[in-house]
């Protein structure tokens, strides 16, 4: 006799949407597979890449259809005896049958990446996603938690390597994960401890051969590792959502320091796409200007094309408009390397484009970028001027402002006065 009040065990361990095993069923299967005398079988953890975007763009019914179809593809790539589970959201797990070799496991992982990277046709819509897969690595006597941790670290590595791929757990991933956690902890403390500083790179008017401003560049005075460039910590800052707070500090500090300069030069400050998502940028800029006394026209905000694209559903245009009303200049950074269309550029109140450093050594690209800038009535800055030939080329093209090692390296705030003084002496001589 079965208890009529208690559903059969199988019902409680099935994911209703996909019909796969659910998280609980997976944990049970894993425990059974690891019970002595069994050796741990290979475990795959899989995330769909860009699933959230599909949900946002096409709606949840299409998102659900995608999960069901993806589950079908995963099932089609495994063998009888392998357990496929949906752990939640767009996370799946495949517990491979006992005796599966590492090579077989890798083949299956690659096959999953291939299958899930193929287009999906959902209710007449073509949807393209991808997947990242992490593979555990056999270790005698490993327990369930450690096996999941391995596959999870490998999944994290697969994503860090650019997604759309499978990665197998290696011991170094453990070290990397620990280093990253340490970095995150130190990074969270860096702002309150005052460890960030701004360095300033000169911007030269190419016709007058005179410094007209500086671009503020973020540095982290790390207690143990010295002065760090943004590449060493900004990706983690973005990942843990510290960028808005750091970015606000950069705006305040940049305005404050620029207001103290001996000449009324401009300061250019970079704003990340993540600083645009909550719509508070105009208020932060207004406060930075008010606090410092810096007039709006002396501040130039630089954004990359990503800021225009990443901001799905965010009113970037309205925020730019309000900045423009404060007299703040807007510049498009790394121009020519992103995906912004000309139509998009024309829609935003930019006054300047900064032509990416990769074009400075290529006369044709330089001309094309300059042409676009001119056609849109924008001023131009050339970045990455490192050789006399670059300087001659961009000056010849009629570029207004130049920036690069040849013109001046980034310097500490305290070095600006002597730098400007020296320039004055030189001009006077």
């Amino acid at each position, binding site marked *: 006799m079965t208890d009529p009040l208690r559903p059969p065990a199988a019902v409680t361990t099935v994911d209703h949407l996909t019909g796969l095993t659910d998280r609980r069923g997976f944990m049970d299967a894993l425990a059974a597979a690891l019970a002595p005398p069994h050796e741990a079988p290979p475990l795959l953890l899989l995330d769909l890449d860009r699933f959230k975007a599909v949900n946002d763009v096409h709606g949840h019914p299409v998102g659900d259809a995608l999960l069901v179809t993806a589950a079908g*593809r995963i099932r*089609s790539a495994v063998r009888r005896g392998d357990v496929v589970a949906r752990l939640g959201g767009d996370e799946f797990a495949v517990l491979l049958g006992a005796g599966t070799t590492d090579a077989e496991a890798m083949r299956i992982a690659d096959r999953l990446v*291939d299958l899930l990277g193929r287009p999906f*046709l959902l209710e007449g819509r073509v949807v393209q996603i991808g997947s990242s897969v992490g593979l555990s690595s056999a270790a005698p006597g490993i327990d369930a938690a450690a096996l999941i941790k391995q596959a999870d670290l490998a999944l994290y590595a697969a994503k860090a390597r650019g997604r759309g791929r499978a990665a197998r757990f290696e011991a170094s991933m453990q070290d990397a994960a620990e280093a990253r956690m340490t970095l995150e902890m130190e990074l969270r403390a860096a702002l309150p401890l005052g460890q960030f500083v701004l360095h300033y790179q000169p911007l030269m008017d190419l016709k007058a051969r005179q410094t007209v401003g500086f671009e503020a560049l973020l540095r982290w005075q790390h207690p143990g590792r010295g002065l760090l460039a943004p590449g060493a910590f900004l990706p983690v800052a973005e990942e843990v959502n510290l960028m808005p707070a750091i970015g606000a500090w950069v705006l305040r500090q940049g305005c404050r320091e620029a207001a103290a300069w001996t000449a009324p030069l401009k300061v250019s400050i970079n704003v990340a796409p993540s600083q645009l998502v909550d719509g508070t940028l105009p208020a932060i800029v207004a406060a930075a200007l008010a606090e410092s006394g810096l007039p709006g026209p002396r501040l130039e905000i630089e954004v990359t094309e990503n800021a225009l694209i990443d901001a799905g559903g965010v009113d970037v245009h309205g925020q730019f408009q309000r900045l423009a009303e404060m007299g703040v200049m807007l510049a498009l950074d790394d121009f020519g390397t992103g995906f912004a269309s000309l139509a998009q550029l024309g829609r935003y109140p930019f006054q300047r484009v900064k032509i990416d450093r990769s074009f400075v050594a290529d006369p044709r690209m330089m001309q094309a970028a300059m042409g676009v800038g001119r056609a849109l009535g924008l001023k131009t800055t050339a970045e990455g001027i490192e050789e006399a030939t670059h300087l001659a080329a961009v000056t010849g093209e009629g570029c207004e402002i130049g920036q690069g090692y040849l013109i001046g390296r980034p310097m500490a705030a305290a070095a600006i006065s002597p730098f400007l003084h020296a320039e004055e002496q030189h001009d006077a001589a």
Partner: protein
Amino acid sequence: MPHDLFRLAYISRNTGLSDAAELDALLASARRANAQADVTGALLFNRECFAQVLEGPMPAVNSVFERIQRDPRHGDVIILLAENSPGRRFPDWAMAYAGEDPEARERFAEMRFADLRQSAVAGTELLSMLEQAVGRTLPA
């Protein structure tokens, strides 16, 4: 209801089909499955790539395409066309093999997957090429 009909055209890289016997088997199973699902279409293939058009009720095209997607004998699928349509272009074919037409076979035989992708053959172009080829071949 004219808008109930859906058409899909894609190209993909041939990663597992090598001889005529395998092609015959593939066509036979495709025709069986398509006839059952009310899907019609045409197929071309050479050593490097497949090109296929599927048409029928949308859910049927969805599921036939999904079955094809899971086939390990091809990869790098690129969808060239996905549209609603008032009528079928291959009404008499569960799956026409456009390669029966010598001219189409010859034209397609030289196509390399990379070239196809590079030239970004428009879906409509592929469609009319298959249609011409099938038009020259009488229904069996």
